[in-house]
């Protein structure tokens, strides 16, 4: 049976191990120190640079504020003007021009149809009560309101009326004619004016 014996003294082995540990720890510590130093320098440079930028900006802001304060009178005028401008712009944006509605309605109303009562409601609906000579005229009136290719109306308002509901049609015994009642939906968007 063969057996190997290492005759290097134990103390020598320990010392060699110690040397290795010393070398390794020295290398590791230097590497760590290097990394930490680099990171520290980077962070120091970064923070110093940022602080310097902040100081520069502070100086600039102070100067700008001083200049702006000297123009406070024009600033107040501008703010007042801007506030009213914004409110007015929003009002104009939502404003409906009902004269267009009346013109378009009149243009699409056949002769022989008289509107007795017209009520503009707030939910973009018109209640119309009228009198026509015949049933056919009532039908023609409702069809014309929805006719997108109607020639005599405004081209911009061809889609103005969306839905017509015929509520009632009654033949009038005395004097002839037909009484009718319709509900007409219209697009308020078409009545707005783009600035």
């Amino acid at each position, binding site marked *: 049976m063969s057996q190997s014996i290492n005759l290097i003294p134990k103390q020598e082995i320990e010392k060699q191990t110690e040397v290795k540990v010393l070398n390794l720890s020295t290398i590791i*510590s*230097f590497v760590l*120190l290097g990394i*930490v130093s680099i990171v520290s320098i980077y962070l120091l440079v970064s923070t110093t640079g940022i602080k310097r930028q902040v100081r520069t900006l502070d100086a600039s802001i102070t100067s700008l504020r001083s200049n702006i304060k000297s123009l406070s009178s024009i600033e107040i005028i501008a703010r007042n003007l801007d506030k009213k401008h914004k409110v007015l712009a929003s009002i104009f944006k939502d404003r409906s021009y009902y004269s267009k509605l009346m013109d378009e309605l009149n243009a699409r109303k056949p002769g022989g149809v008289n509107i007795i009562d017209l009520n503009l409601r707030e939910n973009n609906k018109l209640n119309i009560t009228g009198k026509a000579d015949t049933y056919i005229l009532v039908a023609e009136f409702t069809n014309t309101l929805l006719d997108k290719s109607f020639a005599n109306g405004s081209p911009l308002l061809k889609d103005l009326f969306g839905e017509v509901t015929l509520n009632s049609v009654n033949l009038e015994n005395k004097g002839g004619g037909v009484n009718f009642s319709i509900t007409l939906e219209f697009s308020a968007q078409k009545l707005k004016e783009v600035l």
Partner: protein
Amino acid sequence: MIGSNLLDNLDEKPIDTNSTPVDNTSPSPASMPVIEDTPDIDLSVSDKSTADSVSTFSTPNTVKPSNFGSMPKRSVQSNSVYPAVESSLSKGTKKVGFSSKGYGTNSYVDDSKSSTEDPLAIKEGFKMPFNLDVTKAKAFALNFIVPIVSFSVSLLLILTVIIPSFTSLPDLKTELAQKQTLNNTLSKKLSNLERLVDFKKIVDENSTLINNVLVSEEMVPELLSQVDHIAKESNLEVSRLSYSLSQAGSGSLGYPSVDISLGVMGTYDQLVNFLKLVENASRLIDVSTYRYTVGSKDTTSLNINLVLRSPYLFVNSSAVTDDPIDLDVTSQSFLNFVSKIQGLKYYNPNEITIIDTIEETQPENVDVNQEQTIPSAQ
């Protein structure tokens, strides 16, 4: 040197000195003797003086020369990394047992006991891992002074630079971003203000124009006079005129308004004309609702009820240095806006008869479907 003593003792032993010396700093395993089928060798120290000198590196003088034949003879020199440390430590009463390698503090020699104490006991004492010894610790610290200092500096940098910087860096970046934003805002604002100063005359004109459209106060008599004037201009006969105050709009764009309930008589065309004039009046008047019915006698004559709404807004801005100004009097949208309000017809209150006999009504009374009995302004 303790290590030197050891080597001196070794020289006295019958060791084959003809063996080739090897580099004692890195002995090669290949150069080590390999003994086959050799019984256990007693490596204990029989020579007391040797054991006293070096407790851990025990060289048996009972080892047969044949077994030691391949052991290299060591040259007497110190390879210590820190020879200064070695020499200084050896001067104390508690000696650090450096070997010829010169590293470490593995051996501990107490002069007062070394002559009587069993080397094995010393050896066992050395192996105690928690045997606190100031000299040993000092020696360890001095041997590892470079890594220890390096680690310490690293730790110091981490604690004093890296961690504080990492902690403060996000805040600094945020602060920098905020300052940059503020600086940009102020720069833009100053630029806008300087431009407004250049266009101050235009700004004043525009302010006057806009104040005519959106007045700062109710100015009810002037408003009612304007409505009456427009109705007459449209050849409508005013039968009723009343007003109430209300609130319109929402949020920051909210505004108070004067609601007017108007009853007039006229034809369809006159009504349409009235609507057009109202829509083009300089003081803003919106038509909320309206209703008309054909008169009982004349089918062309209509009884018309309208609800009109005229907003007003009092603004009293103050100069807030850090807040931006969005107004750009040279922008196309603003120019279009100004162009539109320039096209509105202005009814000068000083040139029309002021109506001052109209009483204010409650807002709920303003209804086009209700018959009003308030007399006309006329």
